């Protein structure tokens, strides 16, 4: 397509770069379209209108200012939990435990607020909550990295097991010693001081978690793509033996990557508690961590691409209620759609380097 007219070295590398970029953009988009087609066929088989379905996603997720706010409130934790998949993925690890890190870190933030609320100014309470959540989240996923490095424990399985453990620990506390006696209907911790809550971004009416997610995504993109650390991480992810031979400490890289990812997921938990729910309860376990896996895969683990993809899935999530009411579909419809997208996306991996349109050159076939 962008075939160089003269075989200049610079021109050719730009052409290759363009090939690569266009391919990594077009193939996921094709996968999304294919998933939409599959899901439409499925809806037609159920005697539902696919047109109405996608129209409602457009309206419920992106149609009005209010739906955009709803979408962005959901996109914020999705960006952060997707980063928890993307950063370890650069080191070659498939970590799917962001949900657990979010839940346990959010709970830790709510728990630390209980004794602090009376004794120190609200601003410091917020700060302590944020710090606690980040540290707990980082250690939670850092443990996954350590187990992988030190004991060869498969990180995919261990991180998902830790998610179930996190949920059990949180249930143990919120229905036991830390349960708020004033709230008999639903087990939850005491509400945090309203003054210690995180506010909204002025003019946008979306909490600051969105800004934190976007800034972190950009920073981590720079870290992974523009620094020696990121370069070393990618070598370790591509081939650990080569990395070892280069004198890189693969273990350190893996644990650091998991640490960073876990910190992001922990931050998501902090904002869910301190900006949305105001307490820790079972609403923390809202599948953001699992949707984040799909977001990161769809963004090809590129932190910058995660931002728009998170908005897309935030919008689909925001439209869920509308679809449920208008089309009389169960609430698992969104979950099923995500599953279809995920499977189609992974099947599309096989297209890389094979689309005739791109005529891949030798260099682009890595």
């Amino acid at each position, binding site marked *: 397509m962008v075939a160089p007219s003269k075989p200049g070295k610079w021109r050719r590398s730009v052409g290759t770069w363009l090939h690569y970029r266009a391919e990594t953009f077009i193939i996921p988009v094709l996968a999304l379209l294919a998933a939409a087609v599959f899901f439409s066929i499925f809806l037609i088989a159920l005697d539902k209108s696919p047109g109405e379905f996608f129209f409602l996603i457009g309206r419920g997720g992106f149609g009005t200012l209010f739906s955009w706010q709803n979408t962005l409130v959901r996109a914020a934790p999705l960006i952060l939990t997707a980063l928890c998949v993307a950063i370890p993925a650069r080191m070659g690890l*498939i970590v*799917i435990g962001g949900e657990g890190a979010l839940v346990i870190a959010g709970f830790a933030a709510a728990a630390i607020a209980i004794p602090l609320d009376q004794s120190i100014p609200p601003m410091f309470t917020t700060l302590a909550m944020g710090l606690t959540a980040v540290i707990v989240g980082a250690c939670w996923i850092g443990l996954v990295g350590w*187990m992988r490095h030190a*004991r*060869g*424990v*498969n990180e*995919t*399985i*261990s991180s*998902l*097991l*830790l*998610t*179930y*453990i996190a*949920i*059990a*620990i949180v*249930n*143990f506390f919120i*229905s*036991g010693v830390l349960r708020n006696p004033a709230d008999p209907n639903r087990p939850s911790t005491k509400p945090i001081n309203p003054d210690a809550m995180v506010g909204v971004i002025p003019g946008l009416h979306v909490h600051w978690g969105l800004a934190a997610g976007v800034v972190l995504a950009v920073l981590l993109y720079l870290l992974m793509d523009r620094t020696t650390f990121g370069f070393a991480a990618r070598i370790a992810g591509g081939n*650990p033996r080569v990395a070892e031979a280069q004198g890189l400490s693969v273990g350190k890289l893996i644990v650091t990557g998991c640490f960073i990812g876990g910190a992001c997921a922990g931050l998501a938990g902090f904002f869910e508690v301190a900006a949305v729910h105001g307490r820790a309860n079972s609403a923390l376990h809202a599948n953001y961590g*699992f949707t984040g*896996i*799909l977001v990161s*895969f769809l963004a090809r683990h590129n932190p910058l691409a995660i931002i728009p993809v998170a908005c897309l899935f935030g919008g689909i999530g925001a439209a869920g209620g509308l679809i449920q009411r208008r089309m009389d579909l*169960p*609430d*698992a*419809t969104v*979950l*099923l*759609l*995500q*599953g*279809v997208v*995920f*499977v189609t*996306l*992974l*099947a599309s*991996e*096989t297209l*890389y380097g094979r689309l005739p349109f791109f005529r891949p050159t030798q260099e682009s076939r890595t």
Partner: protein
Amino acid sequence: MSDLWDAIALVLIALVGGVVRVSTPFLFVSLGECLTEKSGRINLGLEGTLVLGAMSGYATSYLTGSPWLGIAAAALTGMVFGGFHAVLCQLPRVNDIAVGIALIQLGTGAAFFFGKPFIQPTAPHMPLMALGWWSSDPQLQNALMINPLFPVGIALALFLRWAFRNTYWGLIVRTTGDSEPAARDLGVSINGVRLAATSIGGLLAGIGGAFLSLSYPGSWNEGLSSGQGLMAVALVIFARWDPVRCFYAAVLFGAAGAIGPALQSVGVTQGYYFFNAAPYILTLLLMVASGRSKRAARDIPRELAITR
């Protein structure tokens, strides 16, 4: 003093019954995963298969009135779902672990989507075998009401070990899992073997799922299998890819899962959620303890991407 002994005896009896009940789904999923991994692929999607099998088994049993048809439907669903994993993975450049994660999401999504109308109604359960006839103790009799799938699972574990060691098909599966070039030299279709192994593995996981909804806990709801399929995958690693050791491991996991309910039966309700977490913590500890072991390194199918 005798009160304490009575309580301990009661807990032990409840534990025996609990182990049989809790370990059966682990046993079936782990045998399915064992077969799949022996052929050189890992299917994390068995967690999704388990949930989907539980839902389809329950729905079929409710609609037809026959739990056996429910089991058959779950087995068929599991087989199709397993086959789907195999077909996706034989595409070049497609990662089997990632496909497994996607199939967990697709399977649970589909199960929740179609299972909504079946959460309330009660479907006929599988009949149990009363193996406690020789005892006059009602508690013991109750504990020994055993689902026929449990002995079937034991027989299957023995059969699989024998088949891996002594039959042509066992050799083919093992060769495919250990070395693709060697399998190709034998003139074996690698994708065909893996399709068969993953499909049968899915079939077994589907039956495990039907056990969850049709025997114990015995109803369909969205929290039915939280990670049991995944623990079964970890269990296969711990069992070092041997079907009979899978059985021992399943019993161990069953015991970990049965402690909480057994203690509850004598009135110990403290730490209920903690005991809920016991099987997960046990899995994790076993994985940490058995990681990097020399024997695991010897027994692992060489083509398996799980321990690089």
